[in-house]
């Protein structure tokens, strides 16, 4: 028995369903992002990703297989010539579905399905993080002798970033300052010109218009969000 199709059926019959899906795929490859119902977006995703995999292969046989679904030669050309190179580094996950709430009229849940064409940044982020960690560790190593701790080898601080971080938390946080930060004042008010709050334990920063700004007790103060990010802090709530 063949595996049943995942997701809801669309249209009035198998031929109608094929037409709807191929029209959606054509529109997606022509426009990069389309707004449709959640159900259709979920049916379109596996089809579109499979077509992109063919496009990455790039030969004539692959092109003909894509043309069997997407009848528009212009859209297929765009897929092979422009979209496929952008996806070269990506191993799947070529599309992204974001829900945008219900449609007025029939209350159908709507979604935006878009091609993820921005360059793959996960590795870059890791490299950046590692560089920042090295910088922090080096700074700690430089600061350690100055803090009258001759027993502690400077190399020990460099050894591992985790060690450096735990050191920083063990010490008074005000002593171990990230770059571009000012220590918290005793009464909790902002130092002159510093408006962004930094939380040492969560490594998050809060801008004055942020949701948790008022309730945050700042260990560090930054002049701007860029300074905070340069010091390895991330924006509070950015993950949500």
């Amino acid at each position, binding site marked *: 028995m063949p595996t049943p199709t995942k997701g809801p059926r669309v249209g009035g019959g198998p031929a109608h369903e094929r037409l709807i899906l191929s029209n959606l795929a054509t529109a997606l490859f022509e426009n990069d992002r389309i*707004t449709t119902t959640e159900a259709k977006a979920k049916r379109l995703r596996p089809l579109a990703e499979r077509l992109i995999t063919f496009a990455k292969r790039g030969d004539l046989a692959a092109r003909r297989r894509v043309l069997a679904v997407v009848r528009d030669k212009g859209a297929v050309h765009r897929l092979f010539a422009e979209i496929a190179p952008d996806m070269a580094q990506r191993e799947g996950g070529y599309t992204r579905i*974001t*829900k*945008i*709430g219900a449609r*007025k009229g029939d209350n159908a849940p*709507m979604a*935006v399905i878009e091609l993820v064409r921005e360059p793959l940044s996960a590795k870059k982020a890791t490299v950046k993080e590692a560089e920042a960690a090295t910088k922090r560790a080096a700074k700690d190593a430089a600061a350690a002798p100055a803090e009258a701790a001759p027993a502690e080898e400077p190399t020990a601080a460099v050894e591992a970033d985790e060690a450096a971080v735990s050191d920083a938390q063990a010490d008074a946080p005000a002593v171990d300052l990230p770059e571009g930060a000012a220590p918290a004042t005793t009464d909790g008010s902002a130092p002159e010109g510093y408006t962004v709050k930094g939380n040492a334990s969560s490594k998050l920063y809060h801008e004055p218009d*942020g*949701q948790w700004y008022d309730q945050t007790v700042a260990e560090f103060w930054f002049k701007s969000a860029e300074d905070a990010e340069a010091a390895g802090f991330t924006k*509070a*709530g*950015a*993950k*949500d």
Partner: protein
Amino acid sequence: MAVPKRKMSRSNTRSRRANWKATPTTLTTCPRCNAPRQPHIACPNCGTYNGRQYAEAERTEHQA
């Protein structure tokens, strides 16, 4: 075909229907504009989701 033998009483009808209850929508606050929004759905006020902008998600008071 099986058919009901007796008319269903008003009491039975009503006690069945009494269990059709609406549940309140779960809401969170948007990290950017603090407006209430449903989780996993782009904010209807400012259109952001996970740091990305979706103008299609924006709804006016009238549309919501």
